[in-house]
């Protein structure tokens, strides 16, 4: 196909625009909704032109929701904070555990190695609901219900396999002889790992970390079941807008915009690494 012909270029433009509209429309619509009051949103037919209001954001940030039924306390900012705490802690823990494990799987052949690696990956296949019921029972017994630690732990189901498999591919790409050369120059095995292998796999580790951060951030069910309001992240916190006096569409939209922004910025900033990390993880292994 000749991509440079005029017809081809026009066709490509139209196709790209269609795809863009399809995927971007909901985001744009949510953004518009977040600047409207509930009445404006529920108008039929909907209008593109309206008088923007910051009331939704004010309500979220101040934590006071005025409804027909009276004032409601909102914990949205707390939820946002929780999201940060839970996602960051999960990723840090997963990196601490997953990077050395990935190195071991990449470098050493040991009994049951492949089986263990695959079992870890298989956590990604299973629907979360499958483990949730037994887990919530265990958590109640262990006293981990409604603790940051408990949620961070269960988030390892999301973050750890991702980091393990992506970073493993990167480690496998580094010639072991580079580390050998370093060790011959008078360094220990541990130094070769921290000073040679980890920096060389840096882009992969960053990509894996970012991806697992995003996946943790977007998780809904684990925190819904295992945590109460003061430990819940934004994804669950948004449920609070379904109130007795109706659904607060405007606030929901504003909450979505606020909660999507950090991960969106992160993803845009590290786009190149993410694509690289994903494709490498997919091809390798």
């Amino acid at each position, binding site marked *: 196909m000749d991509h440079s012909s005029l017809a081809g270029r026009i066709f490509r433009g139209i196709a790209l625009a269609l795809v863009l509209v399809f995927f971007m429309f909901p985001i744009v619509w949510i953004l518009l909704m977040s600047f409207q009051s509930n009445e404006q949103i529920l108008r039929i037919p909907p209008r593109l032109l309206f008088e923007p209001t910051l009331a939704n954001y004010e309500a979220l940030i101040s934590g006071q929701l005025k409804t027909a039924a009276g004032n409601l306390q909102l914990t949205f900012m707390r939820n946002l904070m929780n999201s940060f705490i839970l996602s960051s802690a999960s990723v840090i823990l997963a990196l601490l555990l997953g990077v050395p494990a990935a190195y071991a799987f990449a470098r050493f052949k040991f009994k049951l190695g492949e089986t263990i690696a695959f079992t870890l990956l298989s956590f990604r296949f299973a629907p979360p609901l499958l483990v949730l019921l037994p887990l919530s029972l265990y958590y109640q017994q262990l006293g981990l219900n409604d603790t940051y630690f408990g949620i961070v732990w269960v988030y390892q189901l999301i973050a750890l396999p991702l980091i393990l498999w992506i970073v493993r591919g990167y480690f496998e790409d580094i010639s072991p*002889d580079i580390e050998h050369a370093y060790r*011959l120059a*008078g360094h*220990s*095995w541990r130094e070769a790992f921290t000073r040679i292998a980890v920096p060389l796999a840096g882009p992969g580790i960053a990509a894996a970390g970012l991806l697992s951060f995003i996946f943790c951030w977007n998780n809904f069910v684990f925190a819904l079941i295992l945590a109460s309001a003061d430990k819940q992240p934004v994804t669950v916190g948004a449920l609070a807008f379904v109130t007795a006096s109706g659904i607060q569409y405007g606030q929901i939209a504003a909450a979505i915009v606020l909660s999507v922004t950090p991960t969106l910025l992160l993803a845009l900033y590290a786009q190149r690494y993410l694509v690289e990390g994903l494709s490498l993880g997919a091809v390798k292994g």
Partner: protein
Amino acid sequence: MGMLEIRSVDKLYHSRGKPPVHAVRALDMEVKQGEIVALLGSSGCGKTSTLRMIAGFESVSAGSIALAQRPIHDLPPAKRKVAMAFEGYSLYPPLTVRENIGFALKAQQLSRAEIAQRVDSIARLVEIEDILDHHPRALSGGQQQRVSLARALVRDADLYLLDEPMGQLEPQLRAVLRGRIKGLLAERGMTAIFVTHDQTEASALADRIAVMEDGVLQQFGSERELKNRPANLFVASFIGEPPMNLLDMAVAQEEGGFRLSVGSDLAFHISRQTLDVTGQQALVQAERTKVGIRPQRIAIGSGEARLRIVSNQWLGDQSHVAGECAGHLLVAVTSGKIAARPGDIVPCALEARNLHIFGADGVCVRHAEAR
């Protein structure tokens, strides 16, 4: 006592669901201080495994390795005082060429001036002064190989291990570097082992050559020894270009010795005096035996044997003549031009004193007379 002593070393690789691979078998080797040794063999013969066991990247399955009277086979690589140039170069990507070469010296805590001086001098030797500030990614394979070589040679070590050190270089540069590296090693009395599959390189650089095949050390000696006194059929056919001609001959005892023959065309009398006890025993017991003759020892133009020419090539300084004689294809090398075309029949001389005779187990029981 040698600088490096390898005693009964075995290397077995185990992999799940497969029988273990015996990469190195009962290896015994002693390398003297200041000696340059080549490990020569086809790929998969165990030469790289041997090198990696000495460096410490592979454990020894059995046996011991001692370097400068210290047993090293259980030490981590960092404590072995060994420098190595890797076949895959393995330069540190974030560092420049200069930093790569000076890296180990920095770890030795030498002064900055000393490091710079040593890096510059080794860079001059392998002709990489102009790329010292480049990063490895920007270099060609040949340049990376020279950096890797420099990184190994710049160090102070008891032993230098070089894995295919010049495989990626152009022939001309290779010849120049060989000479210089040999000079450097000799001048500093450095002990070195290098792996190669190139006979020319082995002969040019090494004092002694260890020929390996199938994980077994076949013979360890100077190039001259390997050529004139090959230990067995493998070494005889592996060393030398073109390879030794091998003939399958019938053995019969006769007055004063043995008669070796191929049909009625070719027959030799081997006098008992030229054979030692094992040689005589081998021939008494055998009905047939393998006999080898170097292409350089077959004279064309005179003699009683007849050679039907199959091909005749003039290489500019020597002729390679291939022909059929008594049902065997023989190759002869002569220094002069031979005026013969394929199909011609020319006389040639095969003399009994030029024959290597091999026993039933492939071990050479009589060598050709030295020239």
